[in-house]
């Protein structure tokens, strides 16, 4: 038993040590808070059941020194009178406990479903191997916003997310806010996010979707309504034109060479649609769906050789000359 207690203590310590940007016990959204309530109830009842089983097992083994109803006494077919009432009690306990858990699960599930009644913001997240295409769909279509690998959410505002996939099955999962939902080609699924606390969180693809499944994360920012609106209008703006000669060289390369075939930068001729939108790339927290933190060095590494950074991803290594690379990075860094 000491080992078990030690295990529980270690478990507690481990739980406490996490910083919680991607944690099912985060409780930072309505559904996630419901999760904690239900999880706690299940843990308590299951722990009681477990302790009863282990205690009964130990008692049965402890008792072995006494004589038993065994073949050595030719009484191996007999059962002592206590077993039958014990069986009835055990069955009643198990069935009652499980019924309580089932009913609790139904009620929490209904409560989660009810949250979805009046969403204020609609967005669409489309999964691709291995990045997230994000679109905010406002009633005013001129304010439709497209970004990639990050979402911003206003706190305490229900957000309805339509989920699609362009290739294989993925799963959309921001554990601090809500449970996961699969994105399935040929089907539409959805999830409702109701964030309760501002902060920076992390989502991640939860269904194996190919070689870079591990590097398919999503940066999530929950902020006040004002901050959200500020962010939104900044994101709606088109990219600023390049200012220095180096930036202009990068701009020229981007818009006339390989990059523009796949990537879009609003306000420029680059309008590819099959890869992440880069209009405000430099304002994001990470590169390549959470594979690398956003900074100049990583941007260099990524653009110079994406295949060594995230092997198997669909961005080819172009083979840039040093001056082309310097120009591109200088330009990309202006995309705030």
């Amino acid at each position, binding site marked *: 038993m000491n080992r078990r207690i030690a295990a529980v203590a270690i478990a507690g310590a481990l739980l406490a040590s*996490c910083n919680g940007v991607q944690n099912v016990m985060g409780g930072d959204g309505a559904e996630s808070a419901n999760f904690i309530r239900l999880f706690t109830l299940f843990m308590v009842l299951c722990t009681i059941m477990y302790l009863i089983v282990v205690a009964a097992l130990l008692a049965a083994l402890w008792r072995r020194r006494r004589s038993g109803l065994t073949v050595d006494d030719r009484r191996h077919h007999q059962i002592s009178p206590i077993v039958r009432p014990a069986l009835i009690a055990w069955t009643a306990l198990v069935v009652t406990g499980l019924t309580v858990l089932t009913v609790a699960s139904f009620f929490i*599930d209904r409560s989660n479903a009810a949250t979805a009644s009046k969403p204020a913001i609609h967005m669409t997240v489309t999964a691709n191997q291995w990045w997230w295409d994000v679109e905010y769909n406002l009633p005013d279509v001129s304010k439709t916003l497209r970004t990639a690998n990050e979402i911003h959410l206003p706190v305490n505002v229900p957000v309805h997310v339509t989920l699609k996939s362009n290739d294989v099955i993925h799963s959309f999962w921001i554990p601090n806010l809500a449970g996961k939902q699969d994105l399935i*080609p040929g089907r539409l699924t959805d999830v409702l996010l109701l964030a309760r606390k501002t902060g920076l969180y992390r989502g991640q693809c939860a269904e194996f979707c190919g070689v870079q499944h591990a590097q398919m994360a999503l940066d999530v920012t929950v902020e006040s309504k004002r901050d959200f609106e500020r962010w939104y209008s900044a994101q709606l703006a088109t990219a600023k034109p390049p200012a220095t000669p180096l930036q202009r060289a990068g701009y020229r390369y981007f818009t006339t060479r390989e990059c523009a075939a796949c990537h879009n930068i609003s306000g420029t001729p680059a309008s590819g649609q099959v890869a992440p939108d880069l209009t405000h790339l430099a304002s994001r927290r990470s590169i390549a769906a959470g594979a690398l933190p956003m900074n100049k060095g990583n941007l260099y590494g990524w653009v110079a050789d994406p295949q060594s950074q995230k092997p198997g991803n669909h961005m080819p290594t172009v083979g840039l000359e040093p001056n082309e690379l310097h120009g591109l990075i200088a330009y990309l860094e202006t995309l705030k």
Partner: protein
Amino acid sequence: MNAAEKAKAPPIKVPRDGPRLTGDALKAKLAKTWGNPPGFVGWLSSVDHKDIGRRYIVTALTFLALGGVLALVMRLQLSKPDNDLVGAARFSELFTMHGTTMMFLFAVPVMQGLQIYLTPLMIGTRNTAFPRLNAFSYWTYLAGGCLLWVAFVLNIGPDIGWFAYPPLSGPQYGVGKRTDIWAQMVTFTEVAALAAAVSLTATILKQRAPGMTLARMPLFVWATLVTSLMIIFSMPSVALASGLLLSDRLVGTHFYNPAERGDALLWQHLFWFFGHPEVYIIFLPATGFVSEIVATFSRRTIVHYPIVVLALVGTGILAFGLWVHHMFATGLPRIGYSFYTAASIAVSVPTGLQIFCWIATLWEGRPRLDVPLLYVIGFIITFVIGGLTGVMIAAVPLDLQLHDTYFIVAHFHYVLIGGAVFPLLGAITYWYPKFTGTMMSDRFGKISFWMIFLGFQLAFFPMHIAGINGMPRRVYTYPAGMGLELPNLLSSIGSMIVAAAVLLFVVNMVKSYSFGRKAEANPWGGSSLEWDTACPPERYNFAHIPVVESRTPLWDAGEKMPVAHGLRVEDREVLLTTVMSAEPDVREPSAEPSIWPFVSAVAVSIMFICSIFSPWAVLIGAVPATVALIAWFWPKSPEPDAEPTIS
């Protein structure tokens, strides 16, 4: 001899076992009749269930070791964040091969191996029904396992996960032959499993010793019957699933292609309609081991035998109503989910009742803490955790968070290792003298038990925490700073301890084979019929077919087991009895050894493997397979002295 002379000639006396033919004279005749032909061809021709069962067990344990090595490599890669020991592509192959090997090539086959070996001994007959089908089953299984592993070694192993969801496994994303090899390996194993299941079902229903009514059947045999029926009902579903996938990939159908009005979710329904029962196909035989071990080491019968039987049957039925709990995140209607939540939680009731019966048996008896019983205790302590986390993830709101995380990885390893491998290791220790004639070392057995038990907890308990801290399964790396470093490091250390312990277990097996203490017929004082045979049993199992008068024949029979007489001794014959009450019914010829099941399996394997490369292989490959099958079933010329087989 013309017809008239033939009619006049006195009937030839066919020697039969009985009071006048008993003892060594009988044994010599039976050994000759039931022996294998000499040489390597004779070895390939064997239809003896003991040979086939042993081959199944040894092969499956080899695959366990191979799958375990893959697990160790994965644990090394995951021992620290952002590790680069194994690349992303290789890691996908590692977990696909690990899962596929463990589920298809280890867990189900090892259980069937033990069932093939033990069932005829436990029910008192000389061989399984359809012995050649059994031999065919083994060779097919071996070919499927070799296909997968040769492909892996040649770097064309599958990399799409062991449940191979399309479209990732479809023609557009799963390019090359990797997925075809996976899907065809599934075909091999399902043919093998179905063949063995049919053979076992018929054996149990028709070949029980006289007097062994259904209500007197050992619990392991009940578990075998239930799992065999489950295989018969669930395997066709995965056969259909993998067949449609191969057809999508090889001949351009669109069953799973949403762009052409196929449906990616169809696969998940078909696969899990098999995949969930499969878990119980692995687990129920393990509960059979537990029942036998608990009874023997408590020195009494299992308390409330009918409840255990009903629990087995109930689990077997409920297991078919749970598959959607693997699909809670796919956006199916919520009301429908509620049914599967209730069913998934309800399936723990029969298991809870079985656990009660085992503990009550230990309470009533005088338990002797030998190695097999230690594994049972380890099983209860470990498995119940897995069962309870299973109850948690049956609830939709909990599953939506925990699904596809390391919490699930922890859950199913608690259920499959705690619930099936622990009892399996106990069962191997328990029946080892029956398999080999020698006992396994007790000291090594105890050391490896404690190492496995404690190492397992260290390896898998922290995975719950990793899952709660947001680690999805099937990731080749994870970032630092999310609270994943410590749980992963502990898991990696624990896995090394488990590996060392399993190695010790294997060393113990190998060493005891040559140097172990010689075992008498019934070294543990067991009550069921297999302990009435020699260790290891003779080719013919029983000199006389035993007659059963209670659930524990060896404990109740006194000095001399009652036996039935009258089976031929110069031809292979088994006694068929009635399904319910096991009254003697018919004397039935049993198949002679034959090379043709092996040849058929080779022909079918060539057909299966070539069909990965061209659909024409199905047509052309069917010719040698048909020829081999015709030779296999070629009727024997009727004997001149044919007598009715009904006695």
